[in-house]
């Protein structure tokens, strides 16, 4: 099964083509939020390098969020366009679950964290080993709430994602047994989206491009006033 995957939920963007579990070609760009300019050239180069025609892709996979509004919108729009034109099925996976696949094969608990600003993160936890099993659901929380989620786990806890360093630095002296994923395994990758999508497709069927929806988790941000001045001054 040929899977074409897109991941651009944060400042980096990547595209991959894989065949079942085997990664054939992957492109990655981390130069700021320029996905609308880099995504399509990467898609073309990945397909060219693997010598695969777009027509022969079986499934289109995307990390549908949570993450940056702009990034997710660009990724989903691109994926829908490609899949619709080919009339091929799609699958959406959680950004947080996909990045847990970076650590596949290591016995640990993966805590995926994305920086949602103002000491807030998007997070979920997974038991990692030969496969990835979800422990907690994707949620948007304050970093202070993380220790509660991470208590009573008897495996080493590894942070992945663009919020990993932030959380590690804040929580290092509050929680034992935590570490940062090595830098080359820390961030979102389209190849991990592909690995996650491949496992999901064993349990559920793909859906149409029209049915793919972005997942924007609402940050818990205290509802302070956005305007500072009143109408009178």
């Amino acid at each position, binding site marked *: 099964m040929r899977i074409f995957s897109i991941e651009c939920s944060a400042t980096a963007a990547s595209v991959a083509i894989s065949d079942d579990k085997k990664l054939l070609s992957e492109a990655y760009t981390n130069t700021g939020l*320029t996905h609308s300019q880099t995504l399509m050239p990467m898609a073309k180069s990945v397909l060219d390098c693997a010598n695969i025609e777009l027509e022969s892709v079986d499934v289109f996979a995307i990390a549908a969020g949570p993450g940056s509004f702009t990034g997710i919108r660009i990724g989903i729009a691109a994926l829908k366009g490609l899949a619709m034109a080919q009339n091929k099925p799609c699958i959406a996976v959680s950004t947080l679950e996909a990045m847990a696949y970076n650590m596949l094969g290591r016995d640990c608990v993966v805590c995926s964290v994305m920086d949602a600003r103002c000491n807030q993160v998007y997070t979920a936890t997974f038991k990692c080993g030969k496969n990835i099993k979800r422990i907690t659901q994707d949620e948007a929380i304050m970093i202070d709430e993380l220790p509660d989620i991470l208590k009573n786990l008897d495996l080493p806890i590894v942070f992945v994602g663009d919020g990993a360093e932030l959380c590690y630095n804040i929580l290092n002296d509050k929680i034992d047994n935590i570490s940062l994923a090595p830098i080359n395994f820390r961030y979102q990758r389209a190849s991990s989206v592909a690995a996650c999508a491949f496992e999901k497709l064993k349990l559920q069927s793909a859906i149409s491009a029209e049915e793919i929806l972005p997942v924007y988790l609402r940050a818990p941000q205290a509802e302070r006033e956005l305007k500072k001045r009143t109408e009178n001054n």
Partner: protein
Amino acid sequence: MNTFFSHNSDQTEQIGEKLASKLKAGDVVALFGGLGMGKTAFVRGLAKGLSVCADVSSPTFALVHDYGGNPALYHFDMYRVSTWEDLSTTGFFDYLDANGILAIEWSENIEAALPKNSIYVEFSKGELDNDRIIKITGESIDENFFD
């Protein structure tokens, strides 16, 4: 005090151009002042000063215009933005990381979300109908800023 007086939109544009020469990637220019005060003319001046070739107009409906350039100039209009969720969905927080220059009309509506080191540009009316007083302040701006 960096206060400028303008008698028409051409002069307002020139003041924008003057500010542009002091801007660097990552700066946020927050514009305050009601309808018809010359905010868009000011942004036109910013674009000119940054050597960005673009038709500058208020992004009232599009919310943000990307004029390109190096650094890129992003022009926001927050007139219709009233909640944090509205603001997130404009992509505002993503653009803050994009290493460009943000010019934000109707900053009144999102003042609490402005980065600490924003440059505040406040428009008020002068003596005559077309006169404007343009006050430029900010953490990084001292009295020698425009020297």
